[in-house]
């Protein structure tokens, strides 16, 4: 699948925003502290920015409001509805912290649960597609939820970096490390399935119905040049650099954040806070690559009509 930058930015940023809001909504952070107030602002800005960015890939963004109507059947519609509803408790909680230095735990629980439901809806847009076996698995929502909470925790940690070296800060470092390892463990199972899935149960033989005659091979494409389908769904440039990107993903998303967080525990205050900010930036960059690969490894069934594994797709 073609990795559209706007969609990658949307899922990583809004995912992290919901993760940060989730942590704050559970009552962490003194509501009167400046870092908490800024934290709420950043969470809402990331969510809103992500949503706005997602409308950039639409052909007719001026009609985007119509996407709220079909929540009965469409995960994309459900995501839109949930995103707007979730703004209600989150905006209230943010306003309470920013203007009144206060917090309400009941409202916080409601907000936290709604954050996770919204992220789940985003993931289900992809996981519900039968055409893409790499996405059509329960590991997909598990990954989205795990990375949302993990990146949110890292950002929370980065905001409270000035308290670095204190016991309470150390607890968050341990928590971030545990979330990170668990999230990438889930991602490992996702990737293992994705790399083995191919086109799932579909083959060029089942796509053409000619399997009872023999082995099927594409002789001629319908048109000499590419088209919407080959550009969007049989995208191969991304797949070409799979290995390199995989290494970058692991280095930025796993190795560097772990090393930096462990270092921050060693050095204590001052520099430790800076290292925690660096770890967060590294993780976010790693998640960008992770989301890019999420699209790059995905194989859409329509590729079978364009030659399957040996599809000759011009690299526009």
């Amino acid at each position, binding site marked *: 699948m073609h990795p559209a930058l706007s969609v990658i930015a949307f899922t990583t940023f809004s995912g992290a925003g919901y993760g940060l809001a989730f942590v704050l909504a559970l009552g962490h952070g003194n509501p009167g502290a400046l870092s908490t107030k800024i934290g709420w602002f950043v969470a809402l800005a990331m969510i809103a920015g992500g949503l706005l960015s997602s409308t950039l890939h639409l*052909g007719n963004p001026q009609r985007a409001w119509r996407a709220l109507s079909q929540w009965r059947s469409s995960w994309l519609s459900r995501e839109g509805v949930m995103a707007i509803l979730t703004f209600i408790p989150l905006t209230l909680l943010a306003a309470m912290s920013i203007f009144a230095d206060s917090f309400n735990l009941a409202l916080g629980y409601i907000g936290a649960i709604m954050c996770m439901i919204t992220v789940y809806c985003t993931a289900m847009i992809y996981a519900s597609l039968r055409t893409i076996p790499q996405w059509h698995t329960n590991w997909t929502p598990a990954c989205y939820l795990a990375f949302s909470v993990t990146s949110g925790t890292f950002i929370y940690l980065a905001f409270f970096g000035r308290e670095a070296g204190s016991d309470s800060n150390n607890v968050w470092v341990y928590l971030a490390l545990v979330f990170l390892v668990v999230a990438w463990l889930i991602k490992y199972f996702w990737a293992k399935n994705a790399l083995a899935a191919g086109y799932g149960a579909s083959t060029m033989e089942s796509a053409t119905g000619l399997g009872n005659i*023999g*082995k099927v091979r594409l002789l001629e494409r*319908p048109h000499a*040049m590419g088209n*919407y389908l080959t550009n969007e*769904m049989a995208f191969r440039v991304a797949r070409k650099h799979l290995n390199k990107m995989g290494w970058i993903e692991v280095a930025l998303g796993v190795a560097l954040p772990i090393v930096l967080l462990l270092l921050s525990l060693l050095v204590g205050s001052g520099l430790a806070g800076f290292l925690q900010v660096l770890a967060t930036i590294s993780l976010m960059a790693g998640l960008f690559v992770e989301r890019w690969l999420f699209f790059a490894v995905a194989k859409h069934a*329509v590729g079978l009509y364009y030659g399957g594994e040996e599809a000759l797709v011009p690299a526009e």
Partner: protein
Amino acid sequence: MTTLPASTQKKLGLVIDLDTCVGCHACVINCKEWNTSGYGTALSDQDPYGANPVGSWLNRIHTFEVTPMAHQSKPKGQGVGEVIGTAGEARVVHFPKSCLHCEDAPCVTVCPTGASYKREEDGIVLVDEDKCIGCGLCAWSCAYGAREMDQAEGVMKKCTLCVDRIYNEEMEEIDRQPACVRTCPAGARHFGDFADPESNVSVLVKERGGFDLMPEQGNKPVNKYLPPRARTDLGVNSAFAAPVETTDDAGGVLGWIDRALSGSTRSKGAN
């Protein structure tokens, strides 16, 4: 509403005969011609006369090569009568593909705006272009590549089964069928109602073993495909395999001409 109707009164669709299709692309061209000036916005092209032309098409023909394996056919030269193929010898199959108007159409249920819908009265899957936001999710959900985003208008285009022809009383009755069916010079495309077991399309499917594309995707496509027919094996006994004609018995003037033109290549026996 993007929830699917529990059932439709009619199941209008196409039967495409993979044996008869000669891959001439007439259906592709006539589809583009009719639909660029019919339902919805025009089917735009980008860079049509340049180095990298692309555009929206609702019907495309792929050409496949099918090579029978040894266990699926008789070994070369031993076939007598009709066989589906000869081991190792490829058959070429032209393969027209347009929307299959699935009964369980995922392109309809994923639509967030209600632009995509399946008609309760005849099962045709359509896009209301005024409601389409161009998110492209329906194209992602379609295993058959039947939907293409129009790059000029930013709305999703798909086969309408020529809904503006088949009910059009301004047209002669013979023209009240999809443009691709009407134009096919080989008679490889048939239009009808699959809900009626006596209809032309239902009978064709029954008689010729019509099948679904990618049944494992669970979309229950309405359109059916007919397999290539068995063909006469060309084995050793066929006319094409007979030895080269001999001129050994030629005499008189013809014999003289034959000898003069053949030179030393004429067999000794005739001298």
